[in-house]
């Protein structure tokens, strides 16, 4: 029997509850192949976030970005804005799980006096790059030698196959049905239909369409899987004290968590096969914030596949392990359910595959009361980030 202690752990984080807030958000258009570079997309997102915060580019003296996809770093910032001031920076920001932990890094830099206004930015242009087969989610994996020798030759590749195997095991262990996975896809599509920025704002999805869709990797069908997109977003974090002087309602950082599984990026060898490291990340974030699951008004989670949504909803404690299928089918994830409004912008599945950065933006919009599928009186919004071996949890509140 695998116990929690066997397969992962939480990172030890300092208490940053109430120290910083997100005061500016910026998004580019989210599209299919745009012909733009990630650096151009990142610059536009940065510009808009800085303007939304009511700041000038020279006020931004901290930058967090993705070291793995270093498309918009300090050099690109200065080149775009024509600035040359000193900037604190960290390559441990950007999207995916790090979209949830970047505010923690900002809190540290601000507390140490190394920065006042920290921009986190994440652009992606995989839809454009895919036509030339450079970059993209599968290629990164195919280069790892263990996958190249023990997985790819056996057809266990790429991500749709990994997650189809987890989906199958969830169905076998817990009786989860295709209709229940379909409920996730359809709910998120309905949210996208209410969100003007969503790639799928004009395309509806019915259960009949879901069940009749082509299988990519049975049991995973077309609508269980997110499309590839171009787009990016950015947000500005500053001290709560400074935030009170700025124009926007601050989205206050109340809790941050970070959890890891022991098997790295090898999904085939995950000890707790149908679980995510949210098991380790969420408790610390909720404890730091002083909240329980019942306090959460909106949840957004990194959702490349329907199964990743269901696993995280379970692992974050919103329902018992194995119960997420019936939970989703009951309508609990709908924005107007009064239960657990989930990925209210449409998520990676139906909003845009920009790797989680838009999920954090959606949390801020919900707290400001300006989301497309707005949840009434949203006071607490939570982001669950996921990158396979790592999960993050970010708790934001309205003031």
């Amino acid at each position, binding site marked *: 029997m695998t116990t929690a202690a066997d397969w992962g752990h939480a990172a030890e984080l300092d208490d940053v509850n109430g120290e910083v807030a997100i005061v500016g958000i910026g998004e580019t258009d989210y599209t299919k192949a745009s012909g733009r570079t990630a650096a151009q997309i990142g610059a536009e997102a940065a510009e808009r976030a800085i303007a939304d915060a009511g700041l000038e580019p020279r006020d931004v003296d901290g930058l967090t970005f993705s070291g793995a996809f270093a498309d918009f770093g300090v050099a690109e910032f200065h080149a775009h804005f024509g600035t040359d001031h000193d900037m604190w920076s960290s390559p441990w920001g950007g999207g995916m799980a790090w979209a949830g932990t970047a505010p923690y890094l900002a809190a540290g830099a601000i507390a140490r006096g190394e920065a006042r206004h920290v921009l986190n930015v994440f652009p992606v242009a995989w839809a454009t790059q895919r036509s030339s087969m450079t970059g993209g989610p599968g290629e990164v994996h195919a280069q790892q*030698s263990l996958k190249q*020798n023990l997985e*790819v*030759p*056996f*057809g*266990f590749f790429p991500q749709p196959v990994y997650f189809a*195997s987890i989906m199958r095991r969830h169905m076998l262990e817990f009786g989860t049905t295709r209709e229940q996975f379909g409920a996730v896809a359809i709910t998120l599509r309905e949210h996208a239909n209410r969100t003007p920025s969503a790639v799928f704002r004009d395309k509806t999805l019915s259960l009949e369409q879901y069940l009749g869709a082509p*299988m990519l990797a049975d049991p*995973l069908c077309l609508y269980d899987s997110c499309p590839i997109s171009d787009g990016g977003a950015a947000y500005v974090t500053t001290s709560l004290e400074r935030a009170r002087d700025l124009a926007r309602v601050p989205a206050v950082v109340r809790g941050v968590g970070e959890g890891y599984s022991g098997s790295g990026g090898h999904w085939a060898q995950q000890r707790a096969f149908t679980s995510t490291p949210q098991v380790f990340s969420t408790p610390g974030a909720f404890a730091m914030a002083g909240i329980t699951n019942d306090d959460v008004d909106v949840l957004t989670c990194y959702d490349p596949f329907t199964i990743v949504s269901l696993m995280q909803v379970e692992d974050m404690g919103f329902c018992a392990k194995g119960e997420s299928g019936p939970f989703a089918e009951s309508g609990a994830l709908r924005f107007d359910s009064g239960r657990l409004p989930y990925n209210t912008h449409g998520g990676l599945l139906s909003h845009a595959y920009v790797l989680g950065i838009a999920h954090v933006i959606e949390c801020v919009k919900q707290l400001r009361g300006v989301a497309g599928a707005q949840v009434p009186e949203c006071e607490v919004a939570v982001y669950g980030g996921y990158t396979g071996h790592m999960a993050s949890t970010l708790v934001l509140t309205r003031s």
Partner: protein
Amino acid sequence: MAITRDDFPLPDVHDPLTAPFFAAAARDALEIPRCTACGTYVWYPAPTCPECGSGEIEWVAVSGRATLFTWVIVQRAFLPAFESMVPFVTALVALDEDPAVRLCTYLVDVADPAVLTANAPVHVEFRDLTFATVPGRSVRVPMFAVGAAS
């Protein structure tokens, strides 16, 4: 950076970490690395034992009996090499010696995937792995078939 090895997606049988796996398969043997200090199977292969840290690891023969942990019927060809193969069944099988050791493998001779069941007994069958995109090359690998060993 693209993969330049001209026999991809055949395994690289010279990669030191996994070469013994394919050398054993060439003899129709299934071997898994095991820590000689504490007896843990070290899977995936690693230079040191994740349990006790020992670097004394030897490849040992296992029975080839396993259970079907999960499977996927791949219908979209995610690589050009798979285009002439789809649909096929890729699976994770859990070894009888230690179910924590899961092999990625092909499930072969599956007449009807609808009858596959969780944790069904499976056994190893050695086959030559070939891809239409890598003409004239093959690597002997362990695949698995449903049922107790023959």
